[in-house]
């Protein structure tokens, strides 16, 4: 059948216009503004507030001052902590947990599956502040549920957010975001015909062989998509701030928290904050490019 346009290109553009206007006002304009800001010494208060000066790459030089940048509270340290956080909570935690749960309940029905799925999805949809508060309560040294349980079996009462802050937020974020990977993988698993698995079972494959030879290759595309999306999201996530405030002693200061502290705390250095935002944007952009090229390669090679 011949395909004919319902509207002319002009009318089509008219329909797009509201969306484009929103994108321009709320995305493009702030982006340009932040980019320009990053080359100035604009602050919220003080003399540079009304009269910012053009400082060229000074802000960027300060970020990449390699004499001090791995110290806690500096950009290098924030990048390192973010990387650990992303690998721990996104790649291993969320993707791993999502895949494991989806696989464990493959072709299974019943109360247990429904309960686990409901709990995982609940963790995902509850508002951030509520979740953060419950976790602070859960991890509390003296009155927390976790320590009450550990104490009951004689494992002591460690002060989680003080002694193991990074581990705590990694655990928190794994729990918080596993639902997306779980839903993605469980719907991907449903597209695998049961006969594929049954053929392997009759042929004599064990659980590991089934995973390696059938599940994994057939899910590869989904795993890739999931990895990149989760990486991007986790890279920018701010919620751990509600648990630790970036501390103690900046030990959980992710890049997002570092940006916030630089631009909206203390000196309110908008210029330097803008520089961090631009660098983060470039990192995100690079990740997105990798993702898009991998997807494209998959399409070509089927």
């Amino acid at each position: 059948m011949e395909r004919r346009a319902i509207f002319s290109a002009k009318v089509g553009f008219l329909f797009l216009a509201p969306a484009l206007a929103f994108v321009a006002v709320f995305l493009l304009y702030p982006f340009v503004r932040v980019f320009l800001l990053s080359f100035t010494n604009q602050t919220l208060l003080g003399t540079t507030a009304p009269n910012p000066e053009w400082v060229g790459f000074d802000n960027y030089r300060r970020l990449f001052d390699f004499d001090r940048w791995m110290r806690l509270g500096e950009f290098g340290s924030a990048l390192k902590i973010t990387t650990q956080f992303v690998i721990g909570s996104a790649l291993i935690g969320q993707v791993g947990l999502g895949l494991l749960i989806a696989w464990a309940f493959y072709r299974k029905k019943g109360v247990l599956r429904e309960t686990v799925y409901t709990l995982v999805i609940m963790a995902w949809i509850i508002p951030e502040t509520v979740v953060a508060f419950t976790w602070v309560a859960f991890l509390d040294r003296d009155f927390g549920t976790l320590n009450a349980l550990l104490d009951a079996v004689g494992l002591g009462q460690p002060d989680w957010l003080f002694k193991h802050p990074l581990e705590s937020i990694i655990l928190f974020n794994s729990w918080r975001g596993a639902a997306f990977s779980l839903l993605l993988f469980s719907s991907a698993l449903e597209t695998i015909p049961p006969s594929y698995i049954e053929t392997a079972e009759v042929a004599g494959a064990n659980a590991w062989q089934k995973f390696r030879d059938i599940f994994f290759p057939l899910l590869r595309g989904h795993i890739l998509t999931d990895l990149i999306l989760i990486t991007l999201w986790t890279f920018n996530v701010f919620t751990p701030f509600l648990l630790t405030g970036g501390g103690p002693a900046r030990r959980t200061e992710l890049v997002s928290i570092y940006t916030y502290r630089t631009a909206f705390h203390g000196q309110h250095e908008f210029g330097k904050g803008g520089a961090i935002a631009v660098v983060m944007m470039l990192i995100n952009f690079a990740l997105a490019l990798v993702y898009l090229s991998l997807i494209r390669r998959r399409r070509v090679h089927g």
Partner: protein
Amino acid sequence: MSQITFENVVKRFGSVVAVDNVTLTIGEGEFVALLGPSGCGKTTTLRLIAGLELADQGRILIGDRDVTYLPPAARDVAMVFQDYALYPHMTILDNIGYPLKVRGVSRAERARRVTEVARELQIANLLERRPSQLSGGQQQRASVARAVVHQAVAFLFDEPLSNLDAQLRLEARAFLKHLQNELGVTTVYVTHDQAEAMALADRIVVMRLGKIMQIGTPLEVYRNPANTFVASFIGSPPMNLLSGTALVGQGQFVMDDETVIDMGEVYRRMSRPPLDGQEITLGIRPEHITIHAEPHPHAIPGQLYVVQPMGGETLVNVRVGSKLVTVRLFQDEPPALPDQVWLKPALDASFVYGADGERLS
């Protein structure tokens, strides 16, 4: 190659009894078809053999080995699925060789054995391709090859031909039968197509609602259907089943619409004849009725409905009362018939079934 034995096997899914107390022996090297409509339990029976379902009661033996509770991997059978289940991310070589791979056979040995089987099945030129690059018929052969390379003790086929178009299906049918003759491996074949079962199997197991309705060679099942279900299921076109009342004293059969058929000696020859006035069903195959343009002794009147030329034969449908009776004529030329015709059943070849559907003889 092994005998497969079912002893009082029951399989339930919730409140549904999918396999209802089935006892069955499939001989070594035998080709057995499980035949029945959807939901009759034939596929569940096959999956019980494979170990993809576990029986709730009874025992299943392969050879002398009780496999009732063994996992599929320990049963050493090979299964071919309706959708072929070829892995899209593997070449045909790797697909066929997969059962060998999971058993730890080396890559070189795998390639050797796969090539050997592929040559026998005439797909050796396709080994480097992916399943998506193969036609339906080629995919079907590849999935059979995967079963053959396995050197299993039994082949299990789950409607392997139903995804093929009609012409290819006949070709693949002949190929499968020939292959089974050559290899002599015990084969269980699930189908809902009675012609397929007749053509392929040494014995047919006709199932309905989880129960076995009849077991026999294709000819036995065709010539002596044990009940109205088998009678109506086997044969194309199916047997004419006329319900009515037996008037044993008068030697007559009165159809529900009062049409009277003179039964001659039929009741008298039966060792277990119906009671006088009993509700019975009279079964007559379409080829056991002759059609006449003029009134004929012992013939019943009917109105010509349609004539269907089938090529080598001709089917004639005649309305008798409220019933449509099919007559099969072994002639390619459709007969010229008036609207009013007379049907004469060959009563020696007819079947009498009781109200419960079981045959009286």
